[in-house]
């Protein structure tokens, strides 16, 4: 029966499993849901905590948080909500006096925070004509990296090797170029 249950649950979407867990409180349902994203949560914990053992413990602690929080809160987008819960858990861990000095948060990992609202904006990438105009307005370094990434579809590593730039520098240029493109395209095509 457990096997059949697993097959049945695996065919459900995240939203379906959320509803099912809220109704039944079945931990197996939540386990099925959590397991879909657990690898990435581990990666998030690794990013912030930089310690595999502590990251594994945090992954299990986050699961325990979900058993309670998911029944209390209305969750529209489970994946984004789970990411927020995981990141908050890690930050709370780092901010606690016991762990404050042991695991300093590297500044280079904070770059992605400012890009949380880019998802909706990227829908406008279809406006290629506008993009081409805006690409001309980027500085040469950003233009080179963005064109390599979006038009030539090169990975970070190849771009870094071709340009001689650091991997993180490549990603930073791409992210900044995306932001400048968004600003430029918003001016050309105002959002309704």
């Amino acid at each position, binding site marked *: 029966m457990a096997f059949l249950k697993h097959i049945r649950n695996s065919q459900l*979407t*995240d*939203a379906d499993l959320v509803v099912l867990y809220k109704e039944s409180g079945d*931990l*197996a349902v939540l*386990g099925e849901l*959590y*397991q*879909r*994203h*657990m*690898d*990435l*949560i*581990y*990666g*998030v*914990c*690794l*990013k*912030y905590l*930089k310690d*595999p053992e502590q*990251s*594994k413990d945090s*992954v*299990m602690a986050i*699961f325990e948080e979900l058993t309670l929080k998911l029944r209390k809160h209305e969750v529209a987008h489970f*994946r*984004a909500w*789970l*990411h927020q819960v995981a*990141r908050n858990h890690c930050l709370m861990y780092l901010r606690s006096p016991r762990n404050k000095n042991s695991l300093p948060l590297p500044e280079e*990992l904070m770059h*992605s925070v400012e*890009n*949380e609202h*880019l*998802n909706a904006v*990227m829908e406008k990438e279809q406006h290629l004509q506008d993009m081409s105009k805006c690409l001309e307005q980027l500085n040469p370094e950003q233009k080179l990296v963005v064109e390599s*990434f*979006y038009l030539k*579809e*090169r*990975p*970070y*590593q*190849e771009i870094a090797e071709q340009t001689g730039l650091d991997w993180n520098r490549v*990603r930073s240029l*791409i*992210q900044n170029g*995306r932001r400048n493109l968004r600003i430029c395209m918003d001016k050309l095509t105002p959002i309704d």
Partner: protein
Amino acid sequence: MKSNPLPAFDGAYLERYRRGELSPAEAHALEKAALEDTLLADALDGFRLASLDTTADLSMLRSRLNDRIETNQAVVRQLPKTRFFSPFMRVAAMLLLLIGAGWFSYVYWIDPRESTLASNAPAPSPVSEQRTFAESSPTQPPTPLALPPAPVQQSESVQYRPDRTIRPVEVQLETREMSSDKPEEDLIVKAEEPPASSETKQIEVVSADNTVKDLDKVNAEVAQKELDLATSRQATAMTLTAKEKSLKRSKMDIQRADKPEPVAGWAAYEDYLYGNGSRKSVAPTASNTVTRWEVLLSFEVDDKGRPTEIRVEESGGTYYDGAAKKLLVEGPDWKPGKPGSRGQLRVHF
């Protein structure tokens, strides 16, 4: 949006990215997806910064999660058995329920008096009329019973004790012995019709009259019914209980001297009860198959000789309480007893 694609970029895929095992197209697709998915972007950073192989860690995490779920389910399965639904608890709960139901039935549904009357009712006794005596004095002759004019089809019989020979004389001697030390004892007159009749009626009155007559006549009547009594041992055993109750009441009634009594005497009052049509008015209805009920009333007598302050001491039900009160209110006048004393009238239906 119903469709929710499963994550294409899992831990193994990110580990391959970390090792540089992905093709440029795969790596680019992953990086592009990470730009739109902050969770994936953070995870990608985490895996890229990992110094060791994460495959074993991911496998261990899955194992820990499964253990956690299975442990919880085992606890959930085990809790009800051990705490709430064990066989012992089920048996105990059932016994408790049965005991409670039995007690409730006994207390609220079984009326001991009704059950006694019911057990008397179907007795196959040919007795159609019973008389009991409590003599006021052993030296005085017995008084004739103040019986109503019996219907033609009715016959007479006398109670007896089943552990003795069926001789009503002995019964009377016994009652005489029991009351011999109380010369001032009141007379208890009890007349009862057979329970099988729809017009059965039993009236018991308390009298201060100390004269008892015609004991010989009663003895003769008893002798005539001796054979009938021999065939109804079981029924008479039950009526013995009623007789014992009557004797107890007589002892209680001894203390009722100087209480109000009918102006015309108890015999005339009894005639009133039988003769003024009240029998029909208080007879059980067709729907009420109980053949005998009794009501004990207490009352005061005013200056005009009318009963007032009527109170039901022993109820026979709302219907018979009202019928007895009606008989008393509409009946003959009473002589007041001592000041403050209350008269009593027991009416059997």
